C-alpha cells in the first residue's frame, strides 16, 4: 500500500457524470418493465420480499443523504416512516384518494417534519440532532398510540382498493410503485451528491467550521438534506398500510426500520449513492432468507452485529472495499 492515496476527482467533465444518472433511470425502467412482464407468474412471496428490499433501498438512501453525506445521524427513521404510514391511514379514513396523493401528502408532512426538527436542532452539535430524532420517534409513537382516530394502540385495518386489470394483484402494483420510488430516491441521492449541495455537505461532514469559513451556508444545506431525507422516508411509509393491511404503532415504529436504515448505508458505504443500494440489497436479502429460518429477533440481532463488525473492520463499507481493490489491483 503506497503512502500516498489518490482519489478520482469528484468533478470530471459533465458527460461522464451524467452516465451514472442515466444508468439509474435505465435500471429503474428495466425493472419496472420486468415486473410488468413477469406479472402473476411469480408467486406473491417474491413480490412481498422484493417490496421489503425496495422499501429499504429508499429508507437507506434517504437516511444517507443527511447521515452519510452530511454526517448527521438520524436515529428516528421509524418516526418519519410512521408519519408516512399514518398520513395514508388518516387520509384513508376521511377520503379514498389514490395512493399517489397519499404519497405526496406523506412526503409533504414528513418533509416538513424534517425541516422543523432540523431547524430546531441542526445548529447544535450533531449528537444533539441525533438524540432529538430519537426522542421525536418516541414522542410520535406516544401521540399516535393515543390517537383513536387512526386506530391508537390497537391498530387499524386498511382495505386494499380495487385495481384495474393491468396489474395481476395489488402486491404487483405495490412492487412496481416501489421500484419507481426507489429509482427516484437513488436518483435524488445521485443528484445531491454530484451537485454543489453534495460538495457542501461533504465539506460540512469533514469540518463544519472550516466549511463555513469557505463560504458554505451550512445550516441551509443541512436543512435541504434533512427535508429531502424526511420526505423520502415518509414516501416510503405511505404505501405500507396497503402492503400489510393492518397497521399498529408497533409495526410502523418498528426497531427493524431504525437499525436497518443505519446499518444498510454503513455496510454498503456512506460516501456515495450506490452504497446504501448495495447495503439494502445485501442486508435485505440476507434478512429475507433468515426470517424464514430463524426468529425475527435473531434476524435483527445479526443485523446489529454486522453493523458493528463493518464499523470496526470496514468503516468505508463495501464501497470502500471496492475502491481499495480497484486502487491496489490491476
Amino acid at each position: 500500500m503506497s503512502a500516498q492515496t489518490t482519489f478520482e476527482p469528484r468533478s470530471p467533465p459533465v458527460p461522464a457524470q451524467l452516465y451514472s444518472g442515466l444508468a439509474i433511470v435505465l435500471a429503474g425502467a428495466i425493472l419496472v418493465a420486468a415486473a410488468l412482464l413477469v406479472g402473476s407468474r411469480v408467486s406473491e412471496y417474491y413480490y412481498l420480499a422484493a417490496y421489503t428490499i425496495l422499501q429499504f433501498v429508499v429508507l437507506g438512501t434517504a437516511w444517507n443523504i443527511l447521515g452519510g453525506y452530511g454526517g448527521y445521524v438520524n436515529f428516528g427513521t421509524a418516526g418519519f416512516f410512521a408519519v408516512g404510514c399514518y398520513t395514508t391511514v388518516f387520509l384513508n379514513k376521511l377520503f379514498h384518494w389514490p395512493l399517489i396523493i397519499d404519497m405526496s401528502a406523506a412526503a409533504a408532512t414528513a418533509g416538513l417534519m424534517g425541516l422543523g426538527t432540523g431547524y430546531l436542532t441542526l445548529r447544535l452539535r450533531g449528537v444533539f440532532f441525533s438524540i432529538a430524532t430519537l426522542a421525536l420517534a418516541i414522542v410520535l409513537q406516544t401521540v399516535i398510540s393515543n390517537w383513536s382516530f387512526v386506530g391508537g394502540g390497537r391498530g387499524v385495518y386498511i382495505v386494499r382498493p380495487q385495481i384495474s386489470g393491468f396489474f395481476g394483484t395489488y402486491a404487483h402494483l405495490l412492487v412496481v410503485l416501489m421500484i419507481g420510488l426507489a429509482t427516484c430516491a437513488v436518483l435524488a441521492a445521485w443528484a445531491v451528491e454530484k451537485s454543489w449541495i453534495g460538495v457542501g455537505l461533504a465539506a460540512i461532514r469533514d469540518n463544519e467550521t472550516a466549511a463555513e469559513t469557505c463560504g458554505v451556508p451550512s445550516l441551509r444545506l443541512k436543512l435541504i438534506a434533512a427535508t429531502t431525507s424526511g420526505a423520502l422516508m415518509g414516501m416510503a411509509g405511505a404505501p405500507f398500510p396497503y402492503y400489510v393491511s393492518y397497521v399498529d404503532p408497533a409495526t410502523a415504529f418498528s426497531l427493524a426500520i431504525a437499525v436497518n436504515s443505519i446499518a444498510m448505508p454503513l455496510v454498503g458505504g456512506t460516501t456515495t449513492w450506490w452504497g446504501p443500494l448495495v447495503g439494502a440489497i445485501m442486508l435485505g436479502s440476507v434478512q429475507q432468507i433468515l426470517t424464514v429460518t430463524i426468529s425475527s429477533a435473531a434476524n435483527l440481532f445479526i443485523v446489529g452485529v454486522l453493523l458493528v463488525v463493518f464499523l470496526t473492520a470496514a468503516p468505508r463499507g463495501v464501497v470502500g472495499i471496492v475502491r481499495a481493490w480497484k486502487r491496489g489491483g490491476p
Partner: protein
Amino acid sequence: MNFSWDLLVNAFVTGVVLGGFYASAAIGVTIEFGMLDIVNIAHPAFMIAGAYLAYLGWNSFAFDPLVAMAVFAPLGLLFGRAFYRAYHFFFERRGDESLQGLAFFFGVLFIIEIGLVLISGVDYRSVTAPYLGWTFGIGHISVSWRMMVPFLVGLVLLAGIQLYLSRTFTGRTILAVSQDVEAVRLIGADPVRAKEIAFGIATASAIIAGILLIIIQPVEPSIGREYIGRTFAICVLGGMASIPGTLIASLILGVAETFTTTFFGPSWSPAVSFGLLLITLALRPAGLFGR
C-alpha cells in the same frame, strides 16, 4: 384532574425521590459524554444489562439486590475498561468521523437490547426483598422503600464519585483530561488510561443504576431507550461535566416527569426529557452549572 395539596406535595416528593434515582443513571453519561466527549448512547443498555444481572442473581442465587450491586458493579468496572480500550483502538484513534462512533454505540445499544430479548424474552422481570415492601412516612407523605433505596444509593453514588474525582490522583487526572487532553500529556500523565478508568467507573455506575431500576419497577429490554433522552437531558441541563449539576438536573427532571404523569398521564413522560433538553439547548446551552 383532581387538584389537592396532598396530591401536589406527594407528587413533588415522589419526583425528588425519582430524581435521586435518575442521577445514578445519568452520572455515567455525565462522565462519558460531559467529561470524556464520548457519545455513549448505549449507556442505558448497560444499565438494563445490570438490571438483568440483578434478576439473574436474585433468581438463581437468591441475591439481595444490594448484594448484587456489590458483586456486579466491579464486573461493570472491568467490562467498561475493556470496552473503552476497544472503542479507543477502533474509533478514537482514527479521529475521522463521529458518524462512525455514533453508529457504533447505536449498534451496541441494539445488540444488547435484542440480545436480552433473545436470552430472556420480552416478559417483564423483577426482584423483591423483604424490606422493599415497607413504606416510609412523614405526616401525609408516604414513600415506599422501593423508591427510597434507589434515591439514597443514587446520592451515595454521586457523592462517592465526586469525592473520588476531587480527592484522588487518578480522579483529578480524569477531571484534567475533561478540560484539556494535551495539558495532561504535557505533565506526563496518560490521558488514555485516565479515560479508561473513567469509562470503567461510568459503566459500574450504569450497572448499579440498572439494579436500582429493577428494584423500583419490573424491566423488559426496550426500557433502555427511554433513558437515552433522560440521561442526556440531565447531562446537558446539569452543565455537561458537573456532578452537582447532574444531581440538581436529575431532581428537576424527576419532579417535572412526576407532575406530568400525575396530571396528564404516564405515556407523556418520555416527552418531558425531550422538551427539557430542547429548552435547555435553546435558552441556556451551557446548562445550569456549565463552564
